[in-house]
């Protein structure tokens, strides 16, 4: 009976914890509302470890409170000399063995999950025709923006990662300048983008981002990388497989796009002011010198109109584009883009309108 009760108590603790933890945070950002298998697995480890650790805290606090209230000098008397106990072998064994057992309970799933999440062999898996079955994304982190290249699809985008749901997506990660770290809290744990070597890992996206507040998951840079480290956000759009395929096709045709008449002036200004030197406006991947790290100087703008933010952090409006072009050094200190505050306001507005027209979505 007693035993049953104890078991039930443990389950209740677990359930209460889950409810409490998931009540925290926003579903597009929080690790407590995992929207993918990897994040779920990590969340389960969080629950397991929190349960074990809560147990430890309860035991310690119980002994602590009892000994404090029972053995205060005001209780035992001012002149009592307590027995000078040396120790107890039995107790020493107990509080060595029980923690070891608790740690083993945690260690086994930890090691299992470490190997499971570290297994990126699926990246190179091929079907009977020799075609890759899994989607791979090459991520290049740069001073304060992200580039996402899809090497098998021949397309590239930046600042907004677009991925299909329901399958493992593999990532090749590298940094082009200083070290950054790639983190989509709601979907799964992070991986550093080192400067000298390629890191590989995978994530699994279960939930379509459509229903979220901004329609995207939030991604963060998790390694200090300079003054604008806090502003090195990116967004993640997750689509059903069919929608994703449509998006890919649209992306592959971005070099065929024609510029509509009302933004032609903007395109001209974009070229005349040299923007085009750093920012591509089609999504076709070029072959970089380094097979993984892109050598693009500035973010690809082929899907600018579809994005959620300007420069990762500003509201997605034409006014903010102009604001960015005039004040980029104040908005994201340390970023490498030159200022365009000497260009006429009208030209900047035209550029903004042109950029907003760059879209692959309906």
């Amino acid at each position, binding site marked *: 009976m007693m035993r049953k009760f104890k078991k039930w108590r443990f389950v209740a603790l677990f359930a209460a914890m889950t409810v409490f933890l998931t009540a925290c*945070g926003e579903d597009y950002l929080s690790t407590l509302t995992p929207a993918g298998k990897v994040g779920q697995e990590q969340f389960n480890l969080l629950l397991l470890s929190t349960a074990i*650790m809560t147990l430890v805290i309860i035991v310690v606090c119980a002994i602590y409170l009892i000994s404090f209230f029972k053995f205060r000098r005001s209780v035992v008397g001012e002149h009592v000399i307590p027995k000078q106990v040396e120790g*107890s072998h039995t107790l020493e064994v107990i509080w060595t063995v029980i923690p070891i057992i608790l740690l083993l309970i945690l260690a086994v799933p930890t090691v299992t999950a470490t190997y499971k999440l570290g297994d990126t062999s699926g990246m190179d898996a091929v079907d009977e025709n020799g075609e890759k079955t899994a989607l791979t994304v090459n991520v290049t982190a740069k001073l304060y923006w992200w580039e996402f290249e899809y090497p098998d699809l021949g397309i590239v985008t930046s600042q907004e990662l677009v991925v299909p749901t329901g399958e493992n997506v593999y990532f090749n990660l590298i940094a082009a300048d200083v070290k950054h770290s790639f983190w989509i809290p709601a979907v799964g744990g992070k991986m550093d983008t080192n400067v000298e070597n390629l890191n590989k890992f995978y994530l699994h996206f279960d939930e379509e981002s459509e229903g979220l507040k901004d329609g995207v998951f939030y991604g963060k840079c998790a390694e200090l990388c300079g003054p604008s480290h806090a502003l090195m956000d990116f967004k993640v759009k997750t689509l059903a497989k069919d929608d994703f395929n449509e998006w890919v096709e649209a992306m592959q045709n971005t070099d065929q796009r024609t510029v509509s008449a009302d933004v032609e002036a903007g395109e001209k200004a974009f070229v005349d002011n040299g923007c085009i030197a750093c920012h591509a406006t089609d999504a076709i991947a070029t072959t970089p010198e380094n097979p993984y790290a892109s050598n693009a100087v500035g973010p690809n703008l082929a899907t600018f109109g579809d994005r959620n933010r300007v420069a990762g952090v500003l509201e997605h409006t034409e006014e903010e584009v102009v604001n960015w072009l005039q004040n980029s050094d104040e908005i994201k200190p340390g970023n490498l883009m030159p200022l365009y505050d000497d260009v006429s306001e009208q030209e900047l507005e035209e550029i903004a309108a042109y950029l907003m027209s760059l879209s692959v979505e309906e």
Partner: protein
Amino acid sequence: MSSIAKKTGFGATVWDYITTVDHKKIGVMYLLAGTFFFVLGGIEALLMRIQLMRPNNDFVSAGFFNELMTMHGTTMIFLAAMPLLFGFMNAVVPLQIGARDVAFPFLNSLGFWLFFFGGVFLNLSWFLGGAPDAGWTSYASLSLYSEGHGIDFYVLGLQISGAGTLISGINFLVTIINMRAPGMTYMRMPLFTWTTFVASALILFAFPPLTIGLALMLFDRMFGANFFDHTMGGNTIIWEHLFWIFGHPEVYILVLPAFGLFSEIFATFSRKRLFGYSSMVFATILIGFLGFMVWAHHMFTVGLGATANAIFAVATMAIAVPTGMKVFNWLLTMWGGSIKVTVPMLYALGFIPSFVAGGVTGVMQAAAPLDYQLHDSYFIVAHFHYVIVGGIVLALFGSAHYYWPLMFNQMLDERLGKVTFWFFFVGFHCTFFVQHFLGLMGMPRRVATYGAEQGLDTFNLISTIGAALMAIGVLMLVINVVKTAIKNEKVGRDPWGDGRTLEWAIPQPVPFYNFRQTPLVRGLDTYWIEKQEGNEEGMTYAEPLGDIHMPNNSILPFIMTIGLFIASFGALYNMDADKPWSIFLLIGGLSILFACMFARSFKDDHGYHVHVEDILAEEERLYGKKGGNN
């Protein structure tokens, strides 16, 4: 220099402290300097918390925030926590083991001045073009990219103060091995002495990797070497390894002495022998050993591979076992005892739940896949502040109250002390508890700001309020110190009434030679044994009253450090093409250093003897005709 006559006056006092080799005075200087840097680091923390009080705040600029964040971490670890612990080690350990000074008094002084001027050098960066801004870890790709001299101040400043720490560590190792009084066997050493011993051994092995890392970084920046420049075949991950091979043991260098301090406090105010003394010693050594096996858990997301991550995950979890042993032994020390809730005991009581909370989140992070989520988030910030504030800072504050009468023959105000504790303790939990959730909710650490409507506003505000409470607590402690100093009420020997170890047996004020006769240690808690047997003297002597050999004061450590300080500016500005004069600073400074080393090496200094009649005269001066041990 056979005279022990003292000059008085302000100038003479300053000269006395600059030249002193007395471990008690050096301890006081460590406390003063450490407190200064602690307050500095605290102000930096407050500025950061004000900036993060609300989303999209612009109280400080992003670049300045990174400087604050870097200097807060560096200052608190290297210039506040370590020196404050060294302060207590200096003030207490020689007295606990029945020694008249440390093994190398000259080096003790040198160690202090190196630490102090290293810290001053580092902090001068605020006024000389900007502080370092690549985090206290100073990861190589960012620190090489960082402009200005900030990182150079970091590298040179830490190199100097690190040398001081290494010297002090070696000094305590030798002191504890060689200078113990007769009868003070290893297994009779008080636990604070034991933890100092193990922490010193950790310093000996942990600081060289840091020194090497800093030297390589210095070469990269000064001479254009390419150890960490990957475009030239270097590798930044090596910096991470070197830093954390130092950095993780560093955590134990700090926390083990804190454990020792609490062990003393628990035993004293439970009026009971420390429960499981031998397993406490064993656990200390085991923690020290395991501390070197786990550094890569700071690097789980670097991409070392599943096998490395799994091994370091399990090794890290293993540390929880000896740490748990310690916690249970403290609890069982209280069990069956007679607990008196003085201010030091209050800090110790506050320490147990706080530190356990910090420890268990450590185990959670040891689970590598879970750490992929927690790493570099605010969860980590919460975790290590629970360990460092909940463990080390509480130990420092508690010990300040506990050892104040030993060091200054005065007692800090108990009532004010209790109010201080509650402000600090509540503020601490208020600041850092919510940060666990901020991390889980997706807030990366080291961010200068955060966007609104990401669900992070409330907890950040709570955190800032907590920081303000902590600041009030610290302020009250300072007021308490000033108040006590003005009141200047002498409290005499064993003011707590329950002192157990040798340091409490010495008459107050402690004479400069500590023990008129070397004591004979008759067991663990030797003073307790003597008291129980009704020995009014408080100790049994191992020798008759005789001449005492003491070291001479010396100005050389101070001058040597000044030389190195000047040379550092030379090295720093030598990187600028437009400052050709810097080479003269470098050579000049180093010449001063080497001249002092030459003088020290070739001019023998045998110290001096305090003769019996001098001892008797000194005792009469300190304690009057009746003598000290009554």
